[in-house]
């Protein structure tokens, strides 16, 4: 009997050790530099709030951590869309002025492999900027760094909250350099094939209510030739 108890305790201890090793595995950290931070291309820099109550609309299955906003918004409860969220937000330009509206649809990805440090989300954006035009963005995001640095510590704290400063790129592809692709549809962006990176800046997070104080940022790099042509035309 004592041997069975020892074996069970050992199995539990082994599982806990494995979980800690996965969470704190330094090999799964993402220390790469965004390629768009060193580009010479013209950049469109947009910021937006990721706090649901500060968005125009935020919806999900209604049972997830973050509550829908406004409260009476239709929820995505059907099985094929249950792991999807939709957010409509005001996009601010680099000067902090409202520049347009952005819609983001995100779905948990079957490519998620916690074993490898991949917490993948497939997401797409449609952004309409009054002075630039419209564009689509397609990307895969990896939230592993956010989970290990912010979400797990928030869950372990007595108040279920995390406060501090966390910044990181969440875009992980599909571009070979870990960038998203963007396609312009109208205005000066029409027909342009661009690259983009989304990053996240978190100041407060609750494991019960989600983001409390956080901001997202999209950096879109115009193709260098097209940017030069645009300057020539002006």
């Amino acid at each position, binding site marked *: 009997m004592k041997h069975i108890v020892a*074996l069970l305790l050992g199995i539990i201890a082994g599982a*806990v050790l494995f979980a800690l090793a996965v969470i704190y595995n330094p090999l799964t950290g993402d220390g790469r530099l965004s390629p768009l931070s060193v580009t010479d291309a013209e950049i469109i820099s947009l910021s937006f709030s990721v706090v649901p109550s500060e968005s125009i609309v935020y919806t999900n299955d209604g049972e997830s951590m973050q509550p829908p906003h*406004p409260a009476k918004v239709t929820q995505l409860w059907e099985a094929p869309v249950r792991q999807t969220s939709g957010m409509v937000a*005001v996009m601010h330009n680099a000067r902090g002025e409202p520049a347009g509206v952005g819609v983001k*649809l995100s779905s948990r990805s079957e490519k998620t492999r916690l074993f490898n440090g991949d917490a993948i989300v497939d997401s797409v954006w449609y952004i309409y900027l009054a002075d630039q035009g419209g564009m*689509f963005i*397609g990307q895969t995001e990896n939230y592993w760094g956010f989970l290990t640095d912010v979400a797990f510590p928030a869950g372990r704290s007595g108040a279920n909250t995390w406060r501090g400063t966390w910044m990181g790129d969440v875009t992980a592809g599909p571009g070979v350099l870990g960038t998203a692709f963007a396609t312009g*549809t*109208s205005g000066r962006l029409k027909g342009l094939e661009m690259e983009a990176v989304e990053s996240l800046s978190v100041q407060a997070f609750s494991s019960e209510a989600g983001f409390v104080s956080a901001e997202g940022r999209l950096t879109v790099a115009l193709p260098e030739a097209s940017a030069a042509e645009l300057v020539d035309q002006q």
Partner: protein
Amino acid sequence: MRIASLFKTFLIGIVLGVGIAAGTLYALPVVDQQREASIVAVAPNGGTLESFHINIPMDRVMTGTRAEGNPVPPGLEWPAGPAFSNVRTEMFKIRNARDSVVGVGVRTAARHGDENVIDWLLHLPARGSLFVSMEPAPRDGGVRIGTVVSGTREFAELRGSLGERWVAIDSDEEDAPIGRIELRTSYVGQPEPLPAEGDTQ
């Protein structure tokens, strides 16, 4: 002696625990998206056709506009200012031909200078997304045609077109939709580059 034996059993348990946890995490999917079978037809002139529809008003998630009227959802506050005055953004649930919800769609209509902009974003979580830019004016029969400009995952290598039209429904049934937006996509794969002459020999 007995303590040493128990400790040995405990160590074996740790190894087993690590193995069981690693095997479970590796083998079991963390995310498993529900899939509805695609209902696709082959077009006579090549490519494939797929139809979706949106029942109005039950599939409408939001309508964002400065225009007067009841906001959807109740409590929505569309921002003021010139950046938002000529834009109308709508979000819907998308249904397949069997009337099952399979995704989420976003339709944005805007006035950009002299240009009328209408764009669709169709997001099917288990398959990928389609980005479509529509013609500004509808054609005969009220059908508006758009071009698939890009896509993700399953749709990344596809191009083609999308037609949208409004179909009113006259029904006495309670809770029946007042109409539906029909979306018909036509996918065409992008041509594969021909192999170099030397590669074919």
